């Protein structure tokens, strides 16, 4: 079977949706030349009317997408850096997200915000290395963090077809993941439905985005000691609480690994919901970035603020001991 890389999966999802629905178009910075590779070939296939290079005006082109959506289009915006979402924050959480309720259901804002290369990209320092998906989850904007190429494909397709705004974070740490897959099996993945990557009976590890691969590696490592289930929510908002409940019912223990700041992150939400609703046989644990982390430039410092496999293994062992 052919190899599909995560990056290529994003590209394929965009191409397929552009081909399927004339209302879909892509806009962003350097998308014609396809600097991120995610839009490679789209200009040639679909022409400049459907692949728009924008000036460096994040606020305006984000609002522009909202307006186009109000008039029936389905824009997909590529953002080069997670922090650029901060520039457009008002237009996403205070405009696009609120239109449906505020107009009493008169309209929908089907915009997809795609961030290829979120999180640390080794050496890009403080302003380019954020993983701010929890901010959108808190605001209530649908938020997706695919871990694998096939999920990247399926979730982007679903995001584009969804009538609400959806933010898609494609972690830098996952962009080079490749799978051997029959392209005919690629299909939409519903928003809000998690995936058990590996079954286990002792502890559920909830891993977000690229950390799914680390969690699987750690589960392998610990195979002699413990049976680790790896649960990938895929969508961080809305979260698949029922899926997670099922997993935790089986294992009774919970660890979350999340490459984002600790306070009020997704890991916090998972622990909070678990505390309210799940029956745990030991206190849960989370492995995250530190509180309020700013990613320092020097590579060793950059790595030091990201969760790593050792930390995860330690957390799992601790939860199993309790």
């Amino acid at each position, binding site marked *: 079977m052919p190899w599909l890389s995560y990056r290529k999966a994003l590209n394929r999802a965009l191409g397929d949706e552009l081909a399927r629905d004339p209302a879909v178009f892509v806009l962003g910075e350097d998308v014609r030349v396809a600097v991120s590779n995610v839009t490679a070939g789209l200009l040639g296939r679909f022409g400049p*009317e459907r692949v728009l290079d*924008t*000036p460096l*005006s994040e*606020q*305006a*082109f*984000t*609002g*522009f*997408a*909202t*307006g*186009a*959506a*109000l*008039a*029936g*289009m389905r*824009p997909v915006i590529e953002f080069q850096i997670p922090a650029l979402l901060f520039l457009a924050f*008002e*237009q996403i959480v*205070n*405009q696009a997200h609120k*239109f*449906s*309720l*505020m*107009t*009493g*259901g*008169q*309209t*929908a*804002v*089907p915009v997809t915000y795609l961030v290829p290369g979120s999180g640390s990209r080794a050496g890009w320092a403080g302003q380019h290395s954020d993983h701010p998906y929890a901010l959108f989850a808190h605001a*209530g904007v*649908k938020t997706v963090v695919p871990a694998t190429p096939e999920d990247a494909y399926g979730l982007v397709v679903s995001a584009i077809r*969804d*009538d*609400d705004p959806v933010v898609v974070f494609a972690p830098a740490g996952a962009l080079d993941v490749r799978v051997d897959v029959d392209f005919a099996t690629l299909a939409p993945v519903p928003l*809000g439905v998690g995936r058990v990557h590996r079954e286990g009976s002792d502890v559920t590890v909830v891993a977000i985005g690229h950390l799914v691969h680390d969690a699987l590696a750690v589960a392998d490592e610990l195979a002699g000691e413990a049976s680790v289930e790896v649960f990938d929510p895929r969508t961080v908002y*809305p979260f698949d*609480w029922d899926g997670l409940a099922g997993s935790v019912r089986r294992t009774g223990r919970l660890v979350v690994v999340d490459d984002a700041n600790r306070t009020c992150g997704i890991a916090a939400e998972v622990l909070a919901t678990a505390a*309210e609703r799940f029956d745990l046989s030991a206190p849960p644990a989370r492995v995250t970035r530190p509180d309020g982390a700013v990613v320092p430039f020097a590579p060793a410092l950059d790595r030091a603020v990201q969760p790593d496999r050792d930390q995860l293994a330690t957390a799992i062992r601790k939860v199993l001991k309790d």
Partner: protein
Amino acid sequence: MALLSAAAHADLYRTVRLIRRFEERAVELVRAGDIVGGIHPCTGQEAVAAGVCAALRADDMITSTHRGHGHVLAKGADPKRVLAELAGRTTGLNRGRGGSMHAADFRLGILGANAIVGANAPITAGAAWAAKRAGDGRVAVSFFGDGAVNQGVLLESLNLAALWRLPVLFVCENNGYATTLTVADAVAGTITGRGEAFGIPSTTVDGMDPVAVLDAARTAVDRARAGGGPSLIECVTYRFDVHHTWEHRARVRYRPDDEIVKGRSRDPLEIQGSRLSDVDRERVDAEVESLVDDAVAFALSSPHPDPEDALDHLYATGLRGRPGDGR
């Protein structure tokens, strides 16, 4: 100035009069407690909405501001449903979910007023781009105040609209103040200069005269429909009442008395009214009065929404998040 038929003059007058009386009654309802949260009345500025919207087709689009009742009414929204919206009733344009600052009627091309100054500008540009691609000849109007010309997002939007020759009218209602801040203290350069910097044809007109506004809007709309791209129209006007009705309780002083007197001396109602015969004017006044009476009666007799439905429409897909009390 264009020569208009008597009927056209009467139409303009009717719109001005409707907005005026609507606002006056709305202010009463605020005082009476029937409208919660207050409003930003647009009395004095009616000629802008009336003139611009008279230049539009029914399928053209507008976006508006916190001071948006006039625009929405001029674009054809049913006064009953606008007032019901202000009163938070299920019969309101937005089913009571939006209130004064968010009135929208998508069937009439009213893509929504907006509570964040300047935020509607890029939204208008995007809608205009969609119309351009569809080739349906529709144009989109972004109404905004003088305060908005200092918002980055609006300036970015001028650039996008000019670059992509979008069929947009940027209509600035310069009423001299952004809340308490004067234009002189807020705007370096001129408002039209900002449009011109992006290569956008920009003119200043008498925003107290609906015919002057209509003239300028027609030129701009014709240009936009013909593929000539955006225009900016600065309408010089004056707000007769407060920035927001909280000022009726907590008087803050920032406009000199003589300025207020002078500002109110040119009244769009009189300017346009003088173009009608007395009979016509009285007829229109009576029509408007009954429209507005009906609107008040309709609004106040309409049902309040059920708190159980508070999160209806939160997601267009019908997604329901978890409730706040953990049920």
